[in-house]
């Protein structure tokens, strides 16, 4: 994790933040149901330390009516605010903090009635992230406009970054808009706008809420789940993006394939960081069961039990195992390693992950020091793997190869429902990339049988169908993890993956 040195400017911003009217105006609750953001950590999609949230209405001034001709760049059509406002579920994220369920959760978490909608930790994912109190995580405007801005839920700046430094610059031709790649990217970094076309940053940003990011003050704790917070299903960037009404322009061919090749690595890195960060919390990660595989403890006991078969506990009965989500995608991204004599060996990542798993099992919840060391090793393996993929030109991405890697990795693992769901999301994205490419080149190499096989996989995991049109209303909730995963048959799913590998081999 990049650690930035606090500058004098930073401290100045801290003072401003401390004196800010925000906390008072919104009456933000300080209940500490999870940790606040660590000011020394650079959080995805946040922006410069000294920048402020301006509120989505500032964006609406330009991004509402839709006029591609007037747009300073091909990246925008100036109707982004409207699409988000009318059809994107992020827009209603704040409302759920005032839902009957939230009201029922409050007393169970020791909160006063109505406090969820004022709590920094809740708002961090249901609106904008104000947990980074020491940095400039402040919101401009008077009390009324502040309240309105928070009530807009996960609004523009929650993803694109606090905008006070760039809102007046990012549209200016010559200064920013229309610049060629290296220069445009420099602007993003200079003013703290999140470059969401970068698949690594994009995935990290989504994951910061959909998985969690303890260092950035975003963590759904076990207490919150126990009180009634819905489970966070395993995240797969492409699948989740598919469910969003796009307020962005189509991505170039092979972008989705590259995104898939990267996202597993990024997601695994994020989840290992969660473990390492939780390990440093008071009481260690034992203090929060949410880091661990829910179903490892939460199942009815049965006699006889399929859990009491060799290998089920990774060789340590009675010790909670980590969640297995994200591992299979990362394994697929790295692929099998073969030695000079052609034998397949475990990759360095596999070995590092094995050491991490072991460190969490030496005793229940592991030895903190062993976990710290093992997590650091896994993260550095993943850093390296991510750099490798990033270093390759887009044109080098090979959808056929990626599909094969995904299927092989899945077939070789004891897949649980979440991993199978993620795998399906990735396969769907890559196969659509492949199909588009084949259609553009008039190539016959694409086999529709593969696509239909992936459709069958989708049915096995109850994958949501994509929205019918870009103007469809907000998608319905897709059922909870437990409902969808209840009838999952791992054997059947893996058999199907094996069939896809055979199909690919036969061509």
């Amino acid at each position, binding site marked *: 994790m990049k650690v930035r040195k606090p500058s004098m400017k930073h401290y100045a911003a801290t003072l401003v933040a401390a004196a800010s009217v925000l906390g008072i105006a919104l009456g933000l609750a300080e209940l500490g149901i999870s940790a606040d953001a660590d000011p020394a950590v650079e959080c995805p999609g946040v922006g410069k330390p000294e920048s402020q949230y301006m509120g989505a209405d500032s964006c609406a001034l330009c991004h509402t009516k839709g006029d591609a001709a007037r747009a300073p760049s091909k990246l925008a059509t100036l109707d982004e605010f409207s699409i988000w406002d009318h059809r994107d579920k992020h827009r209603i994220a704040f409302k759920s903090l005032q839902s009957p369920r939230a009201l029922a959760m409050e007393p169970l978490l020791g909160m006063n009635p109505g406090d969820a909608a004022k709590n920094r930790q809740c708002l961090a994912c249901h609106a904008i992230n104000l947990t980074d109190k020491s940095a400039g995580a402040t919101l401009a405007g008077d009390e009324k406009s502040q309240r309105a801005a928070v009530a807009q839920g996960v609004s523009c700046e929650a993803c694109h970054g606090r905008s006070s430094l760039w809102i007046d610059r990012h549209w200016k031709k010559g200064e920013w808009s229309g610049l060629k790649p290296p220069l445009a990217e420099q602007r993003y970094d200079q003013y703290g706008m999140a470059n969401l076309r970068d698949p690594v940053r994009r995935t990290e940003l989504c994951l910061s809420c959909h998985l969690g990011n303890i260092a950035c003050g975003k963590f759904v704790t076990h207490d919150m789940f*126990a009180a009634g917070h819905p489970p966070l299903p395993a995240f797969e960037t492409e699948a989740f993006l598919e469910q969003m009404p796009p307020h962005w322009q189509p991505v170039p061919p092979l972008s989705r394939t590259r995104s898939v090749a990267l996202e597993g690595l990024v997601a695994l890195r994020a989840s290992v960081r969660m473990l390492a960060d939780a390990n440093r919390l*008071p009481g260690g990660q034992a203090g929060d069961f949410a880091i661990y595989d829910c179903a490892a403890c939460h199942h009815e006991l049965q006699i006889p039990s399929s859990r009491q078969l060799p290998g089920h506990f990774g060789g340590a009965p009675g010790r909670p195992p980590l969640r297995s989500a994200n591992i299979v995608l990362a394994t697929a991204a790295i692929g099998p390693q073969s030695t000079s004599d052609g034998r397949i060996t475990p990759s360095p990542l596999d070995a590092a992950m094995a050491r991490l798993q072991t460190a969490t099992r030496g005793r229940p919840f592991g030895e903190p020091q062993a976990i710290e060391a093992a997590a650091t090793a896994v993260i550095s393996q993943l850093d390296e793997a991510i750099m490798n993929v990033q270093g390759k030109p887009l044109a080098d991405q090979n959808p056929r190869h990626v599909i094969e890697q995904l299927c092989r990795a899945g077939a070789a693992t004891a897949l649980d429902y979440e991993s199978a769901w993620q795998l399906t999301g990735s396969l769907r994205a890559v196969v659509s990339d492949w199909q588009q490419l084949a259609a553009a080149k008039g190539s016959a190499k694409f086999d529709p049988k593969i696509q239909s096989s992936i459709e069958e996989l989708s049915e096995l995991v109850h994958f949501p169908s994509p929205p019918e049109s870009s103007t469809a209303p907000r998608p319905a909730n897709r059922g909870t993890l437990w409902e969808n995963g209840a009838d999952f048959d791992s054997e059947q799913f893996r058999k199907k993956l094996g069939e896809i590998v055979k199909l690919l081999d036969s061509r």
Partner: protein
Amino acid sequence: MNGNSHVPNFAHRTDRDFRGLRRFAGVCVAVAVLCGFGRIAAVAPGGAESATQPTEIPPGKVVSPTKALKYVGVGGCSAAACHGGPLTTEPSRLWNCSYTIWASQEPLALPENRSLKTADHAPLIDKHNRAYAVLLDERSKRIVQLLDHLPTTDAATPQKDARCVACHSVPHDPTTVPVAILADGVGCELCHGPAKNWLAKHTENRWIDSYHTGKYEPLPDMTDTRSLLSRARICAGCHVGSSGDTDHLVRDANHDLIAAGHPRLDFEFHAFLGVMPKHWFDGPDKPGSPAVKPGFKTDRETHAKAWAIGQVVAAEAALNLLAHRADENDDKDSMRPWPEFSEYDCYACHHQLDGKYPSSLQQSAKRRSGPNRLGSLPWGTWYFPEVEFLIASEPFGKWSEGFGQPLAELKTQTAKPIGSLDRTTIHISAAKAAQAMHRLADRLAEATFDPTAVDRLLLRASDEHFAPGDWDEATQRLLTLEAIWKARQFFQPQRGVSPSKDEQAIADGLDKIREKLQFPAANPEIEPSTDPRRLNPHFDSPNGFDAEVVRIKLFEPVFVRIRRLLAGDEPK
């Protein structure tokens, strides 16, 4: 399950448990060093990688029991003229067939009205005789295979594993005990004491006379099994667990062992006594009937007293075991797991998440404030609620004041989030609380559970404010009500006359609660086998249990009738 609604077992649960698996408490890691990890190094699957896993803990020191082997085996007791005589129900001749009863492999078919049971205990198999035999079956092998990462079940030898024999047979290093003696399972001497030094003496007329004239004193190494207190302490040594000492190895059925397939332990002395075929005579089962032979103690208080003593002794054993588990300086099994999940309510975690909102736990969450707040692990839900109830209900007037204080202190420490537990403080507090329980148990042994005390307990147990937080608390309260209800029935002068409407309804209501608290069959379409040795597939957790529903629908109607009965307000 076995067709007798009065048998206080949990259908398949206790059936299974008594088969002996329950007793598979182990020295776990301590002796794993001897017989587990030593082996792993030799046969570690997957080569060097798995052999270096920290789950395979570096050897800690093993303290082996030093008491010299003084076991002679059941063969020393089973002569036909001694304890292996023909089955009889004649109280004065029971001693002659006590081995025969223990050894029977079939449910004892005894004349209906003259069974060994006191009044309503059905004859059953004494499963202690199979305690060793179960170590040879697939399930036991699988447990050791999983714990020790063995490649196959055939590589596992639970019968030679000190973690297992610590409860399933002679609690000594199994390599030092002749297999013939180990194979007896939980034989006579496991409860009565190793017999080498008293076998001959206890056949002498002098001692037999002292036994019958009531001046009975156990011989050296012989355990006093006539006193409920000393009997309960023997049972708890395995059925709850204990740290090792000079007499026996560590006995700890911890969460690792349970996760590998060992049944959880849920000992309740009075109920357990009820499912064991008695090879002894406690006293006449009708008040007022003359003692069978001069010198036989007539213990009319068995039900209430066994319940009270059993609760407190189990709590004492559980606290001593916690003190051991939390003791970082005790290196008998220095790498035992901590935190230890089996200290907590199993079903707080082990319930299916089905996506339904709100869940029954979330609905009743307001009742679970404080340490048992939602999302936390409630500690000690099995062993302590009824002890607290017993202390609070003061059956003998101001009497047990102060005994509960150390336990209350410990509870504030165990209520902390599991990552913030202070192991040293818990070790000290648990030992202190155990001492208080020890004193309380001693005191209960001297107390008289007369009708006043029994009625007082029954009334308090039926308190309208009783709100079980979980299955453990509900089940413990049922066992309390059953024991105290039996005690009350015993004292009724008109006993034998047909019960009043309320009395019948209370008995039926208790049966209904018992039925509801039993774990469901895994597949309701499969007719369960009636063979008590067969393991029927079943849930091992109270699938769908809802504490509020059980309280309102099942407990409350019984409570109302009990209160009315005790107030003498029963409508004619």
